[in-house]
């Protein structure tokens, strides 16, 4: 089966050890996590994980089912790039002298839509958001012209284009389900 990059989005309880519960499911199948980003969601007490990994559809489906099955996981699903709006952020530190020596910093800034976050006697910190190839493109171009002193890229964050179901609606459904579960067999 064809391998491609999948993005898994997970909503979970904010418990200790959740990341371990998720990552061991990747470990078991020998899957590498490409990027990972975790943060509180809009709803209190619920955390959101965005994970990307290279694999095939057959495997990703099983992995997501096994993640979803964990008691502390509220909801998880996967998407391909076409189904998502997604973004990464990258920071680049270069020496101020190198930056000033650039023939056309304006052109570079316009081309990559760069923001300058900090400028001191020693160094300049640039910020670029975009897809992987865009943040990488800037890194490659800078590297040709100078030494990039530090470079850091975040994990991906993503929003699905199609799903209209909101987390709060999902939770409401769970409340309904819960009443049934408690009554099961009684």
């Amino acid at each position, binding site marked *: 089966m064809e391998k491609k990059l999948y993005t898994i989005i997970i*909503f979970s*309880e904010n418990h*200790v*050890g959740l990341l*371990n*519960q998720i990552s*061991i499911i990747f470990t*078991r199948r020998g899957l590498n996590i490409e990027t990972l980003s975790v943060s509180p969601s809009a709803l209190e007490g619920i955390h959101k994980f965005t994970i990307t990994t290279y694999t095939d559809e057959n495997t990703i*489906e*099983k992995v997501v*089912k*096994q993640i*979803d*099955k964990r*008691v*502390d*996981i*509220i*909801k998880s699903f996967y998407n391909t790039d076409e189904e998502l709006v997604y973004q990464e952020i990258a920071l680049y530190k270069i020496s101020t002298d190198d930056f000033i020596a650039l023939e056309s910093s304006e052109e570079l800034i316009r081309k990559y839509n760069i923001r300058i976050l900090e400028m001191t006697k020693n160094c300049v910190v640039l910020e670029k958001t975009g897809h992987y190839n865009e943040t990488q493109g800037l890194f490659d171009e800078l590297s040709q012209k100078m030494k990039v002193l530090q470079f850091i890229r975040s994990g991906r964050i993503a929003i699905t284009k199609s799903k209209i179901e909101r987390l709060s609606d999902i*939770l409401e459904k*769970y*409340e309904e*389900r*819960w009443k*049934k*579960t*408690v009554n*099961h067999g009684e």
Partner: protein
Amino acid sequence: MAEKKMKGSYILMEALKQEGVDTIFGYPGGNIIPVFDALYDYQDDFNYILMRHEQAVTHAAEGYARASGKPGVCIVTSGPGATNTITGIGDAMMDSTPMIVITGQANAASLGTDAFQEIDLVGITQPITKWSYQIRRAEDIAYAVARAFHIATTGRPGPVVLDFAKNAQNELFEFQPQKISIARGYIPYPDLNEKQVDEVANLINESKKPLVLVGQGVILSNAEKELLTFLEKADIPAASTLLGLSAMPSDFRLNKGFIGMHGNIAPNKKTNECDLLIGIGMRFADRVTGNVKTYAKQAKIVHIDIDISEIGKNIKTDAKILGDAKEVLIALTKKIKENNHSEWIDSFKAFEEEEYNKVIKKSLYPSVDALTMGEVVRKVSDATHKDAILVTDVGQNQMESARYFQYTKSRSIVTSGGLGTMGFGLPAAIGAKIGVPNRTVCIFAGDGGFQMSIQELGTIMQSNIGVKMILLNNNYLGMVRQWQELFYQKRYSSTPMINPDFNAIASAYKIANRKVTKRDELDEAINDMLSNDEAFLLVVEVEENGLVYPMTPAGETITNILTPED
């Protein structure tokens, strides 16, 4: 009204009582002493069994759960006590067995410092539990216990760990009976989808050659009656996985036996002849399917299971019904036509005869002097009027007892299927006997596996557990020897065993015992064993070079079956 405050260890006792716990298996130690101290005041509430090893604690709890249907409860100490439970926890996870393992833990304040007997049990057990939780404060105890029992026993059951920090055992708090609070996103009983039921009912109605595979899910959902009604109405032959055995009585007209590596020839062959294969509460494990690339390719495959992550995991299915087996079977039975498949069912006979002639006859009525495992198993099964609970260890003894024991009641086999844990049998038998004291419990073990838990003879002595132990002694790690004989040029590396005098050991524990070396001693010895309700060890010297047949070698097409003549 303010409740009286009590120590965390007492809150645990109250919470366990509230869950209806009657039996606790355990082993004490430093970081769990407060709990055992509280237990001292609750001796009238709980039947407490001191085992001889924490692994045995977990297997006893599994045996209790599997035989009785109630969750097994374990209490052990931290560190080595906790790590000794890992095998049993993994076993319970693989075999969907409800179990609550409560372990001591160092004080919460010292966690992370390599405190004495501190071990990250939650981290270790996350991959092999349904839920693993650390109780760090007395106020969390009631919540954690309620949630643990709910998770362990609902949906697809499994093990839960509660790692109980010592400070929380000693802190004072008031106990308030808890109703389990919502576990968001945990959907143990998915809603039945009528469209799925209709689709499967249509497939069944159209099928000329249907075959049902019965797994433990049917037993776990108490759907045995519903299964028989369903099978009768559509006239479908059915066979069981190892853990699904006893869901149908052995003599049920449509029961076609046991599937998988050492299963019966007919249902294995028919798997690749049927036009519709319906798995119910089973997981198409590799020991059942053999090579998945050649498995039931001609058939439409239907999977009925409560766990969505099982559907499509090993085998691509054409249709599914997600749900509890009982609910699904009731709904399906309403929608299927009464049918008659007698021609298809009769076509199993040729394979049944083939197996009888090539395998069963030689096992049950051997022409050689040496005793076979099969004849011993069948004699014991007959002598207990097919009414006993079979507990097995792992190896040839397990496969031969699964093949030749017979069942009239459900929940009559307790065996380690998914993990194949040697040493499981003896402690599991102790648990089964305690869980269902009015039934005869027969444990068949090999010389290897018996010695992995032989210390539990001490538990049997101390707690007076009337289990009937049949040691099938071939002086070999027989199942490994079998693979060496068949696939490794008879190079018997690490499989011959020099064994102790097992009878002398039983006598040292004051357990009645006999040894049988000849066929004509067997009946009387079995009668002697079953003449009262006390523990008994029957050592049977069986053939050393016996082989379990039929056999589909691992990874082969399920119909590539070896029999003695090949």
